[in-house]
């Protein structure tokens, strides 16, 4: 077997495999990670220390306020929260928010499989797009090198939970259509 052909095969395989489909984990895995992290820290495996850099927090706060304003503006007056729904008050911790958000996503997925009302279809797509944008913002915030702005992350997760709840409402007709 020619060494040259073998090398050629190897590099062709490399370029093919490197450009193969990219698969991503579901957001459910984020909640599982948070659970594991909380469990380990309860067992004393991790220590927490918090040092805040005021300028960094200020920048992040601006980003969060910006996001909250843009996305929140779209949903003012739209939510008629069902009593049976999951509460998303600001006292919920990040893992709780993630878990609640994922719980709603599972419910939405179940509803989606039986959903055949085309009336809200465009609105549903818009909300889903906003959720995707929020997910991107959350990921960017996590990856931005910030040290400890838990409040900012919490605000984004809080907003995400609200949107997920709104989305569920669109499917179950629990919300008044009053998008501004």
């Amino acid at each position: 077997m020619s060494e040259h052909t073998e090398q050629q095969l190897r590099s062709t395989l490399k370029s093919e495999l490197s450009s193969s489909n990219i698969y991503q984990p579901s957001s459910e895995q984020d909640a599982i990670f948070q659970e594991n992290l909380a469990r380990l820290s309860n067992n004393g495996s991790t220590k927490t220390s918090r040092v805040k850099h005021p300028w960094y927090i200020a920048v992040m706060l601006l980003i969060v306020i910006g996001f909250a304003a843009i996305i929140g503006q779209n949903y003012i007056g739209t939510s008629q929260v069902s009593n049976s729904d999951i509460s998303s008050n600001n006292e919920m911790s990040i893992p709780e928010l993630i878990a609640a958000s994922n719980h709603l996503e599972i419910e939405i997925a179940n509803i989606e499989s039986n959903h055949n009302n085309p009336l809200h279809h465009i609105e549903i797509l818009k909300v889903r797009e906003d959720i995707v944008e929020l997910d991107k913002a959350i990921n960017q915030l996590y990856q931005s090198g910030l040290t400890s702005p838990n409040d900012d992350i919490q605000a984004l997760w809080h907003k995400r939970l609200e949107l997920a709840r709104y989305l569920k409402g669109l499917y179950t007709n629990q919300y008044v259509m009053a998008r501004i």
Partner: protein
Amino acid sequence: MSFHQNCSKKVIKRAQSGDKFALTQIYHCYKQPIFNLAFQMLRDEHRANDVLQTVMLKMIDSIVSLSDSNKLNGWMKRVCYNSIIDIIRANQRFDTVSDDVVFDYSAKESLSIINSDHWDLEYYLDVLDERERLVVWLYAVEGYSHKELSKKIGITEQNSRVIYSRAMRSLKQLVREQEVTNSRAGARNE
């Protein structure tokens, strides 16, 4: 999706001191490459999720021992591969191929198949078994030699070559199946 992530030294340092937020940042940096690699190898979402969480637990547990923050990318990738190897090893033995088996395949023929219209990468990866996918990936993408591969997986060098040659011979299977499918479609059209 590459393991070349840019987690800052500060974040790594904070993670080493047990900062949950920093640990979460590292999780978000690496969750995609880890899951993607695991899924490519195992072709199973549940087991890929298991790999993701296993690697992250190891990261939380062992990041304190990471001496150089520049090595985090390589370290995460190594832990990921090792977790995948552990899962494959738990399912099937690597060394089921006798050292006497001849390994041969035509690199030229393999190349022509990859460059042909029959080539379907996702289908090819589905056709291979886990051992073959792992060996092909480590050999072609990561650039391991069969000697290095044998040490990594814990098999003989000969065994590594045999597994690789089987993977290459599976390419022919793709062509045969495509031809059968095409001829059936042609017969139906007639």
